[in-house]
């Protein structure tokens, strides 16, 4: 008789491989890697059922550092590869990791379709607003005016907002966090993991070499309380030192406004309450930018919907049930046949 020993609880360290991590010292990716490893340990995830799929870029090296199954694919195509993995085996927990160039430029098309299909994946977009691995060109999320080797006079094209993009294409889970928020990030990732469908998480990540400090206007300690709002479903949208500020919905102009509690008779009851099932509100939150607004972090939107692969396999199950028997010989003989004597 086999004696089953109780499963040993895995720690974050158990999710690390023996491979030397090769990001630049001080790169935000280290913190995200630690955050993900912590999350998986806290979730008691099963390494054998966990797959990390990535494309190309600094962020895409991620799978090599996770003691799970991993597939480092080609530039931009990780959402498509991951879709194939889920179609073949819906039981696997599949995480997709990539940067802003990988997922919003060369792979923007796949990102759009994997989100709209609602394939059950955790999609982590490390947004550092720059191309790191190719040595510093501007990216589709770079602000206008970004000086880079390919834009010496400053970039001139409009950046895309990752969260607004994901909302626009019908995403069922859109969240945001940051590399330096070591407590916030695992909580967001846990929500992403538990959501059935394409969970899209934009993680603001500092590239210390090519775009250092690009997010400091809302991530630095001195400004973070004033320039970040951590949204929670069912909670009033408060932020600022001592939570003295909040967002109200200006119904005449259909937009959010920043107010200060106690000014003009504003009380906490006037503050809008976050409803993560409200796509319109999520869109308004995603649009907010400093200095006029804080950056919205947390789960901006979450609404359950059937997953793509579940629907695919439901059709197969139905067809299998409807057919008396899946028999190749009878399929070969279906339709008009004749016998030659």
């Amino acid at each position, binding site marked *: 008789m086999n004696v089953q020993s109780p499963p040993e609880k895995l720690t974050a360290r158990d999710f690390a*491989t023996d*491979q030397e991590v090769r990001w630049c010292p001080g790169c935000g990716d280290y913190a995200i890697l630690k955050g993900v490893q912590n999350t998986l340990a806290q979730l008691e995830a099963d*390494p*054998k*059922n966990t*797959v990390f*799929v990535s494309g*190309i870029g600094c962020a895409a090296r991620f*799978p*090599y550092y*996770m*003691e*799970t*199954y*991993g*597939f*480092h*694919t*080609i530039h931009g*195509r990780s*959402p*498509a*590869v*991951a*879709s*194939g*993995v*889920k*179609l*073949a*085996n819906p*039981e*696997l927990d599949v995480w997709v990791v990539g940067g802003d160039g990988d997922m919003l430029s060369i792979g923007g*098309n*796949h990102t*759009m*379709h994997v989100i709209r299909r609602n394939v059950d994946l955790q999609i982590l977009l490390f947004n550092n607003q720059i191309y790191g691995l190719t040595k510093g060109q501007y990216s589709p999320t770079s602000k206008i005016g970004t000086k880079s080797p390919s834009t010496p006079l400053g970039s001139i094209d409009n950046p895309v907002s990752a969260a607004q993009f994901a909302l626009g294409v019908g995403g069922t889970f859109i969240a945001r966090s940051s590399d330096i928020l070591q407590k916030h990030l695992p909580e967001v990732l846990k929500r992403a993991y538990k959501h059935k469908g394409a969970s899209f998480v934009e993680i603001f990540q500092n590239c210390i070499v090519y775009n250092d400090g690009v997010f400091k206007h809302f991530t630095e300690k001195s400004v973070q309380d004033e320039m970040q709002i951590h949204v929670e479903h069912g909670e009033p949208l408060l932020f600022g030192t001592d939570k003295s500020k909040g967002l109200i919905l200006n119904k005449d102009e259909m937009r959010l406004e920043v107010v200060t509690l106690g000014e003009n008779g504003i009380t906490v009851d006037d503050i809008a309450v976050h409803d993560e099932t409200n796509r319109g509100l999520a869109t308004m939150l995603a649009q907010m930018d400093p200095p006029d607004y804080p950056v919205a972090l947390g789960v901006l939107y979450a609404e359950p919907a059937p997953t793509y692969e579940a629907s*695919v*396999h439901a*059709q*197969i199950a139905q*067809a*299998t049930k*409807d*057919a008396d028997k*899946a028999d*190749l*010989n009878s*399929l*070969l*003989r279906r*339709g*008009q*046949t*004749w*016998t*030659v*004597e």
Partner: protein
Amino acid sequence: MSEVATAERSDEGRQEVESAVVRFAGDSGDGMQLTGSHFTMTAAIAGNDLATFPDFPAEIRAPAGTTFGVSAFQINFGARKIMTSGDLLDVLVVMNPAALVTNLADVKPNGIVIADSGAFTARNLTKAGYEENPLENDSLEGYRLVKIDMSRLTVEAVKEFGLSNKEALRSKNMWALGVVYWMYGRKRQASIDWLETKFAKQPDIAKANIAALNAGHAFGETAEMPAELGTYEVESATIEPGLYRTITGGESVSLGLLAGSLLADLKIAFCSYPITPASALLHQLARMKEFGVVTFQAEDEIAAAAAAIGASYAGALGITSSSGPGIALKMEAIGLAIATELPLVVINSQRAGPSTGLPTKTEQSDLYQAVYGRNGDAPMPVISVSTPSDGYEVAIEAVRIATKYMTPVMVLTDGYITNASEPWLIPDAADAERFDVEFRTDPENFQPFMRDGETLARPWVKPGTPDLMHRIGGIERSYDSGHISYDPENHQKMTDVRAAKVLGIANDIPEQTIEVGEAGAKLAVVGWGSTYGPINRAVNNMRDEGLDVAQIHLRYIWPLPRNLGELLGTFDQILVPEMNTGQLRTLLRDQFLLPAEGHNKVNGKPFLIGELEDAIRARLEK
């Protein structure tokens, strides 16, 4: 000598012919494909051997009456083995002037042209570019012209069903079919049964079509026919006994993929993106869900290939399918499958290129793309389909090689084979040899790139397997461990082993045989793919004339069969006919330093037997 039928009078007054080539041509909306497929079914039931060639425009609904909106369906049927859809037409049925002007050149001298004179209106004549009505002047001298106002007769025949004029005219294809059935003494019952089933919910439409079919047939029978139109008898052919169906290349490949997956004990994940002429596969596999087949219409060609690779990584049989331009888009992903050594079947239904080229016209010009078309030294096996039914075996073989050797495999078929059909002796699925895939589950000494000593294949591990977690990727992998390696020596070693693995497949495929003739002949005609039929007939005809010529037809393009170089070396001359500018010829010259010559054309149509006969003669009679 081409595929010309010999004729003699039979007892019933019907002229007996060994084979006949009939083409129905009309406007896209005239239902010519349906008419042709009915005639095909009836010929098959009558015991003829046959081959068909549908030829339709790229536009879905081209303006009515225009030359670019002409749709045609050709069938060659006979009392002997039929190798092609036929060079020249015995009978051309045209439903309008545009069909006449675009098809007349293919009618043989003194051939029969049956025209719907009712459609030769001033407006239609202008659209076809005729200044005067060719049915009324002497421009069709040299043909046996039969003018019938099929439009009017059809409307009369279906009057009792109260259809609008437009609806009534939809049945005129059945009227034309009725006439041709009468000409060849064919039974109408199979078509009547089909119409009754098809239009079970619209009984008036069914009745109108049947009435038109009967009216056309009666028109011939009641001696209203002009004397120019003979009646013919095509006896049944000597065909191997058994149960038959007609099969297109699209059907045979999709059934073969399914059969291959069952033999390998894998579930199919077929990931594709619509493209002419490859979409037929996606449509067919989408209807095989009861076998657990997953089909995924991806957002683009790249995603289709990438998803198929992801599915293979997860333990399914990943398959992607496209035509030339789509295959080009997939190539980076195929390189990933080569690098990570994952099975992947890639079906390429070739069409005329480059770029968009001629989407509905056939060509075999992706051999270079298949063998050489990737960045880096990226070898992959390439095999080809020779006839519409051959796709079944070829697809099974692709699955076998891909799973046994952990490699992508490209199957080259083409637009002609995909759409053309032929009778198929239906195999018993139980006769095929199984090649069940064994996934690695043993953690003892596991390394993801540790190779099998014989096949050099790495182990296939499904995510979800305990204790075998590992990472793979497109960056060069360390020999055995698969970890990232930038070591130059390792890259050399890995490049060498990837090439050796694919070349080693030559030991696991049959030796090349000679299709017709003997080794050491004065000339070998070497082909691949859909040129099989015309080459075979041409070589046989030339041998009948006493020329010393042999046929060799390749299924395996890469690696080439291990005895091929030696075999080709026995011939004085080598002729490689291809529907490209000389791609296999390049490969043969490169591999064997042989003075192979080409006979090449890219006019979007299969070779004619006659032109290959001329090419053979030119080399043996000089």
